[in-house]
């Protein structure tokens, strides 16, 4: 493992320090699980230690998440639902009732909302800029300079499908069901993103480019620290 890329990928971001600031133990768990994901990448074996750590992270996030009930609508959502229902002409009233009021569809819409809230590149790399959410205090997570390396590193995860299921698919399913409204961000995805960034950085072989990247990375972190 390349130490410099490891440092940049796993701790060269503001998110891990934000987590450390809020909960030191949780930060340590995130750090170790990210390192284990990277270490396990070459073998197809399941690390029991990684499974335990990851379950801790998931349960921690579940505990801190302000769950969005699948069927319960807020007042604003209810008002919008009524407005939508009134948009249907009388001959389509039944159709409107099915699509706007039936439980199955309400659950579907909520799951859709929760799922895509997680699947948002800008949330992780740009503090949700330029589509910041009104009621939520956004904060910087990963440096935007790491985004291309994240994308480059993604295919490497496909070599170890078991780990991918653990660190991506399982939390994706869980937090699609309950939402990811948590003040420290959707931490369950931290190991996946950090390790992908590392795998992307690993592909840089040119020394001069590496030095330039380190300098730029540092400048970007300074920039993001200024915004925080």
């Amino acid at each position, binding site marked *: 493992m390349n130490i410099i890329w490891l440092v940049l990928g796993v701790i060269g971001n503001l998110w891990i320090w934000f987590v450390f600031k809020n909960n030191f133990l949780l930060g340590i768990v995130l750090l170790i699980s990210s390192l284990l994901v990277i270490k396990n990448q070459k073998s197809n074996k399941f690390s029991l230690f990684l499974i335990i750590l990851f379950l801790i992270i998931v349960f921690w996030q579940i505990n801190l998440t302000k769950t969005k009930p699948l069927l319960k609508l807020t007042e604003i959502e209810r008002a919008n639902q009524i*407005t*939508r229902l*009134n*948009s*249907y*002409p009388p001959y*389509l009233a039944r*159709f*409107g009732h099915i*699509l706007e009021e039936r439980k199955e569809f309400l659950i579907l819409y909520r799951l*859709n*909302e929760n799922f*895509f*809230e997680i*699947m*948002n*590149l*800008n*949330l992780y*790399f*740009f503090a949700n*800029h*330029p*589509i910041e959410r009104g009621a939520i205090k956004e904060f910087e997570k990963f440096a*935007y300079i790491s*985004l291309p390396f994240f994308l480059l590193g993604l*295919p490497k995860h*496909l070599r170890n499908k078991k780990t991918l299921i653990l660190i991506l698919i399982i939390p994706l399913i869980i937090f699609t069901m309950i939402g990811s409204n948590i003040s420290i961000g959707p931490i369950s995805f931290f190991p996946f993103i950090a390790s992908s960034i590392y795998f992307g950085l690993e592909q840089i072989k040119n020394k001069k480019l590496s030095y330039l990247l380190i300098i730029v990375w540092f*400048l*970007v972190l*300074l*920039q993001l*620290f*200024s*915004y925080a």
Partner: protein
Amino acid sequence: MLKKIIINSIPILLILIVGIFLYFYKLEKIPNGFYIDEALPSYNAYSLLLTGKDEFGKTWPLVLRFYGSYNPFLYTYLTIFPIKFLGLTIFAARSVSALSGLLAVLVFYGILRSIGLIKSRIVIFISTFLMLISPWLILHSRVGYEVSLAFLFLLLGVWFLWLSIKNQPIFFILGILFFDISTYAAYAERFIAPLILISFLIVFRKKILSKNFRKYLIWGILIGFFFEMPNVWLITTPAFFPKGDLFSSDILIAQTEKILLLPKIIKIILAFLREFFSQYFLYFSPNSLFYKADHDLQRSIPEISVLYSWMIVPYLFGLYDLWKKRKKNISKYIFLLLLISPIPASLTKDPFSSHRALPLLLPIMLVVAFGVDFIVKKRKNLSIVVLFLLCFISLVFLYRSYFVLLPSLRAKDWQFGFEQLATIVNSNQNEKFVFDQSRNKPGYINIAFFLKYSPQKLQNLSPSTLTDHYFTGEKFDIQYTIKNIEFRPIVWEKDIYKNQILVGDELTFSESQVKEHFLTKSFEIRDPINQIIFLGYKTNPTKKCYSEKTKNILCSESSK
């Protein structure tokens, strides 16, 4: 032979039939309203048809000034034809765009057939169908402005460039020609088309510089340059770059000032990089593409994004498949299109501007097509059944969002109400109306459209020197009087002493003002969900003057 042709034509005929319905059904009613960006080209087309001049009296201009946007001419000029045969109607205003969108789908089908790597006809059919029913294309086709027309020509350019690499170098010239035409259709293409072309030349330079390609390259460049001469001339005027205020300079300044310790030039570069890439990657984010795209209510459809949620699956599989095949020419071409298309839109401050980034729809749908192909190859029968089912479900949700919800929920955003206002103005020719233009978008062009106002009369309303300084971007206050309606800010100190009907939205008139000035409600126009669009209040100068302790000079004038 004939039987084979008929069987091969069935998929495309089916797509055409569904397409004609989706793109033309209730075209005059949905979207509900008539936006200023639609009224401008259609009224100017009407003016050109009747007088050979635009609304300002300029004879067949290269770009149309409109409200300072200097739009390329092609859409407006083509709209002359439906207006000639169908009259000045909303349907005629939107028909060129609707037809362009439908034709773009057929071109997409041709591109898919020519790719070579996707061999399954069923995959090609499904992918074409998905393009046809994509909310992104439908929204920007069923409108009265130029976006889908430019998209059509860009697609043709992209297709012919691909064919030049694949089959016959002579197609290179056609590709350049269609790129040229696209730059006369919409603003964004002036930047995207050259970017795509330059990138294409770089990526495929070995093939293009080969002996049998060289002469077509030279001819292509010569023809391209010849047809771009008007644009080259336009670059020397402010009319080429009228949208400078769209760029996010104020955001950049704010971000630069926050950065600590570093020299100013580094701060500017970093601020620009963050701002640009935050906009740029938004165009690839699954959240934007499949859940909530454009936050502008006039450029989006309620409860649906630019693509359907389930399409994230073929999108991700398609990206993976193309990455595996990245050494193949088609993959390089698709990645090139993917990377280039959002660049101009990313330089503006509007997050996910669906109309500026419409060119991105092509590479995204090609990625989806590869994803569909990947899925079908893994589990043929099951996946085909599932895909057909998903297409049907998507149509149901499209119907819900576009044909049911959009006409009522977004009527206000589409400037609903002007048609009704024009009817009221026309039915009360003895009354004088003043339309408050202090906060609202200009309404004169919508009223001119619905009243079928004489273009000669409208031309006489603009400053006579404007045609001499047409391309300078010189601003002037558009305060017109069209028939018996005047467009200007209400001057409360004076207007209440004249017998007229003041027209504005619900924020124009407060309860205290209505009471104080003895105004009487004359009419109100509401949208389908009962929101107030326009209110009309009749003044009562007699009562107003009588109520005043000290006599206002305007009272003696009003009594005359």
